[in-house]
């Protein structure tokens, strides 16, 4: 495990992204701790940590594949290598996520637990998706491209697509809520937002529907359960891809 972790910690891509997230966490902390500022901070930090964790996972795998993978495979075998790589990627993704958002916790101690929960959830999800993308890709370029595509789709394009689709095909509140929770990235961030905004006002009609029909506790439980299911499936998929494919 230490072999793998040592290589990852000094990867330039990971360090560069950590610097970006570090700067962004100072900027978001300077917004203050009012309602809108806190919501914005959680959203911005989650977006960036999601990207960071996906990319550090990809870097870890592609560096192995172009370097010492034969050594690892001959030493541990496929199963153990895939499991260790997934474990190390998750560990490093979480560590990088927390380290790079540290200024926010220091500058806004009253909100640290809310931001930390979102960072933890997005880093965990990002690590699994990044590992899956890198194990499934044909080479370094494809791995980066597919990882970036996953991030762009889940974090940016998905909401735009839903917004445009709702213009052309008017949807009810239930459908909007369904589309919201079908996105694993939203399931990672929403529990933190629920703490800040217990009436789900920032989610508009979808949030009103969830609170009215399910109640806050059941809505939170549903979102957390879906997040756990998505993350477990992506972890399993990443392990299977690493174990079964000719990497």
């Amino acid at each position, binding site marked *: 495990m230490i072999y793998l972790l040592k290589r990852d910690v000094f990867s330039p891509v990971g360090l560069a992204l950590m610097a970006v997230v570090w700067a962004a966490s100072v900027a978001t902390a300077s917004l203050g701790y009012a309602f809108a500022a806190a919501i914005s901070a959680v959203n911005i930090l989650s977006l960036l940590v999601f990207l960071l964790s996906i990319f550090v996972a990809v870097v870890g795998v592609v560096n192995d594949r172009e370097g010492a993978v034969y050594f690892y495979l001959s030493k541990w075998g496929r199963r153990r290598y895939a499991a260790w790589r997934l474990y190390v990627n998750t560990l490093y993704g979480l560590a990088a996520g927390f380290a790079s958002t540290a200024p926010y916790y220091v500058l806004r101690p009253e909100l640290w637990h809310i931001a930390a929960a979102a960072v933890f959830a997005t880093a965990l999800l990002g690590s699994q998706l990044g590992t899956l993308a890198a194990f499934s890709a044909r080479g370094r370029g494809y791995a980066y491209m597919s990882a970036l595509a996953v991030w762009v789709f889940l974090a940016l394009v998905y909401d735009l697509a839903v917004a445009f689709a709702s213009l052309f095909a008017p949807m*009810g509140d*239930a*459908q909007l*809520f*369904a589309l919201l*929770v*079908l996105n694993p990235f939203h399931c990672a961030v929403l529990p933190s937002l629920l703490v800040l905004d217990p009436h789900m006002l920032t989610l508009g009609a979808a949030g009103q529907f969830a609170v009215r*029909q*399910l*109640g806050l506790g*059941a809505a939170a439980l*549903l979102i957390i359960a*879906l997040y756990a*299911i*998505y993350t477990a*499936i*992506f972890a*399993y*998929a990443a392990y*299977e891809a690493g174990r079964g494919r000719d990497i």
Partner: protein
Amino acid sequence: MKWALLLAIPILVVVLSLSGPHVSHLTLGHFLLHIATAVLVVLPVYLAVNAYARTGSRRFLLLTAAFVALAAREITLSYFMISGTTATVGDIPVDHLLGLVALVLLTAAFLVKEQ
């Protein structure tokens, strides 16, 4: 791509529960629970059928039959709960009987002796 099939389960549950108008008299949480059980019960049937196809043993045949009965019970119960209707044999609801059949088959699967 087994993981893609697994991923389809939560997606299917969410889509079936929330995509149409909420016509049932049940609360959304209760409605979602019945959709989830009706979708999830297909998984053990699939696994049992696979196991029987691989081994051809009587034990797995009984296990497959038990899971099929359980799936029929869950789907029937979900339908009854969502639609507000019921079907009975005498005064016994059909889903109760299917539950009993599933239990008998499951017990038989444990007790049967392989040749």
